[in-house]
């Protein structure tokens, strides 16, 4: 059965079953990738194809879209809603939803606005209070969800209204509060960029870290007599990654460079991804999303998992609200309303996190928000109204969900659901 001439005995422990199709070497890696795609295990492929298409179309209509200056803007625009989308990914992974992330971010920016002006708090105080408020809200959601079994979309829909009210209450009769222009959060969101040289070094370090962690894993697996991936394909991937990152840095550095808020988002995504993949907590999150009953019988404390994801989601929403207030250097009654909610949830889904739970990863927040903001940015460049923008974003979300559902069906047919 095996496709190579080697006898089963020469394979590592986990590759000895004769029915396994052996993918070895670079050709094997490519073949394995193609057969996975055919079986509906598509990962982030459609999103990358979609992104290239979107960028191509907008660039064709307005040649300044892919200019360095505009891409620097685009990256900065992604940061705030991207941070919120990371929290949404966590909630979606346990097959729940938080519809109130927009209001949460709005209430948090109102706290920042009042705190920095009339209340006279220092910036760290205001940030801690706003994020702590997020934690409290998440705790309340989780308590109601776990204790009373109220579906999370109802709990958070109620929360959406309540938080909107809180935002209006905090702002009182100020319709809009301008943050002090010299405040550190405004400077961070508007004018903080990674120095050119440092950006190249960071890109290099990231690739070195990638290679190092893969090599360490290969060494551990070899020690346990398990199969390891092909070294050649690792170096090919690392080289492509290095070229991509360094080129990206160079292109952005032609104007202002890589913005710190965007770096914050990328680092946050990497940290959350690490925790999801390598810790028992992450395993529990995926297990609860896959089968609540199985997780419960395995002795996983369900309430702990729910509390952790709802608290994290609301805290990240609060953080995102602070970031967007800093970017606009203002907190107003319209902060967090409008498309913040839609953008954050759509980003998570468009990026490939399944609405059905248990499938997806932190990177989908990053990829998804880049798509959403590219569309928003491109349509603004094309001088289209927000009416058209909403409709097109809605359409893209629909396509993403259709792809998710179809991939799910294809996985079922190919036995990999």
């Amino acid at each position: 059965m095996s496709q190579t001439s080697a006898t089963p005995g020469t394979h590592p422990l986990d590759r000895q079953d004769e029915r396994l199709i052996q993918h070895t070497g670079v050709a094997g890696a490519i073949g394995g990738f193609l057969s996975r795609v055919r079986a509906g295990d598509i990962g982030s492929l459609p999103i990358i194809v979609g992104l290239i298409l979107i960028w191509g179309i907008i660039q064709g209509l307005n040649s300044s879209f892919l200019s360095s200056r505009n891409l620097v803007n685009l990256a900065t625009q992604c940061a705030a809603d991207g941070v919120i989308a990371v929290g949404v990914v966590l909630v979606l992974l346990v097959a729940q939803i938080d519809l109130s992330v927009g209001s949460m971010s709005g209430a948090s920016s109102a706290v920042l606005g009042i705190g920095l002006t009339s209340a006279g708090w220092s910036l760290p105080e205001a940030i801690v209070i706003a994020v702590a408020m997020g934690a409290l809200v998440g705790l309340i959601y989780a308590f109601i969800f776990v204790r009373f079994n109220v579906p999370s979309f109802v709990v958070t829909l109620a929360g959406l209204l309540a938080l909107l009210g809180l935002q209006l209450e905090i702002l009182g009769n100020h319709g809009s509060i301008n943050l002090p222009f010299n405040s550190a959060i405004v400077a961070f969101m508007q004018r903080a960029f990674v120095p050119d040289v440092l950006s190249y070094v960071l890109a290099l370090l990231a690739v070195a870290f990638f290679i190092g962690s893969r090599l360490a894993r290969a060494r551990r697996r070899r020690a346990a007599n398990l199969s390891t991936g092909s070294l050649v394909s690792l170096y090919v991937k690392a080289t492509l990654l290095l070229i991509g990152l360094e080129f990206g840095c160079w292109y952005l550095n032609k104007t202002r460079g890589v913005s710190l808020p965007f770096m914050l988002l990328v680092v946050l995504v990497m940290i959350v991804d690490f925790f999801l993949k390598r810790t028992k907590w992450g395993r529990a999150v995926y297990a609860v999303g896959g089968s609540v009953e199985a997780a419960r019988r395995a002795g996983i404390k369900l309430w702990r998992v729910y509390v952790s994801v709802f608290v994290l989601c609301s805290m990240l929403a609060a953080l995102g609200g602070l970031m967007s207030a800093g970017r606009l250097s203002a907190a107003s009654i319209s902060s967090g309303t409008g498309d913040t909610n839609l953008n954050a949830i759509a980003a998570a889904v468009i990026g490939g996190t399944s609405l059905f739970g248990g499938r997806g990863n932190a990177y989908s927040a990053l990829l998804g928000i880049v798509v959403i903001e590219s569309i928003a940015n491109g349509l603004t460049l094309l001088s289209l109204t927000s009416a058209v923008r909403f409709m097109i974003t809605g359409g893209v979300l629909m396509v993403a969900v259709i792809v998710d559902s179809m991939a799910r069906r294809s996985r079922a047919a190919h036995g990999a659901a």
Partner: protein
Amino acid sequence: MQQTVAGVPTQAQTQPVLTLRGVSKSFGAVRALSNVDLDLRRGEVTALLGDNGAGKSTLVKILAGVHAADSGVIEFDGKPISISSPTAARDLGIATVYQDLALCDNLDVVANLFLGREHGRLLMSEEAMEERALDLLRQLSAKIPSVRTPVAALSGGQRQTVAIARSLVGEPSVVILDEPTAALGVEQTAEVLNLIEKLRARGHAVMLITHNMADVDAVADTAVVLRLGRNNGVFPLSEVTPEQIVAAITGATDNTVTRRAARGRRRPAASPDAGVEPADLEPGTTKHSTVSTPTNSEPTGETTP
């Protein structure tokens, strides 16, 4: 298959690992179990038989720590114990494989095997888990192509194998299998029966809950029959015929099963009027004609006799 497993100690010589004496359990006004005794021995497969509502599931749930017994003594290795929670049962070394398996489809085989008790402190050590998973599956001669495939990609028999292998991760003394072959095809049933023999050879005390007399005949050493929440006989399989066990399950030697068998011998072709026999309609001709309905499966949630 059974003959190939050599060196299985005869039950009379070994001490039971798990003993139940006079265990009773009521749900409201309904007495689900009354004064049930049970012995499980290492290296022995005990089949727990009984019709729907006989109390099998209640007994399993008491052993798994889902329900607490109202009265009676449970001894583990001669020491009286109480099983207060599923975790307590697991810690004692009683592993239960439920009929619905409770696997996470989106996770791979390794993740499912170690769910809730992953190796490693801060970070999971995937390699140690994968090595142990391969080792366990090899001991069971399991046919799983790759331990990194998501469970959703496996067949029914393979999923049953994963569920059984998962119960062995903590090296339990007692493995309880709740209708492991109910949803399986012929080939897969045979694989699971092989697996049960592997468990016996590994020295676990196996309790097999089933409705399938062929499975009992194939792998069990002892059959324990419950009827209406009470013990209705313990039969060493070497000394009884399936007919005697069926009689104990249904409570009568003259029951629907034997009548069907007799009719089948008279008329080999399928009889169109199989459902109704005149005897069924006459009270007094049979002892328990109303409760003796043979069925293939029972809902896992049943508790009332």
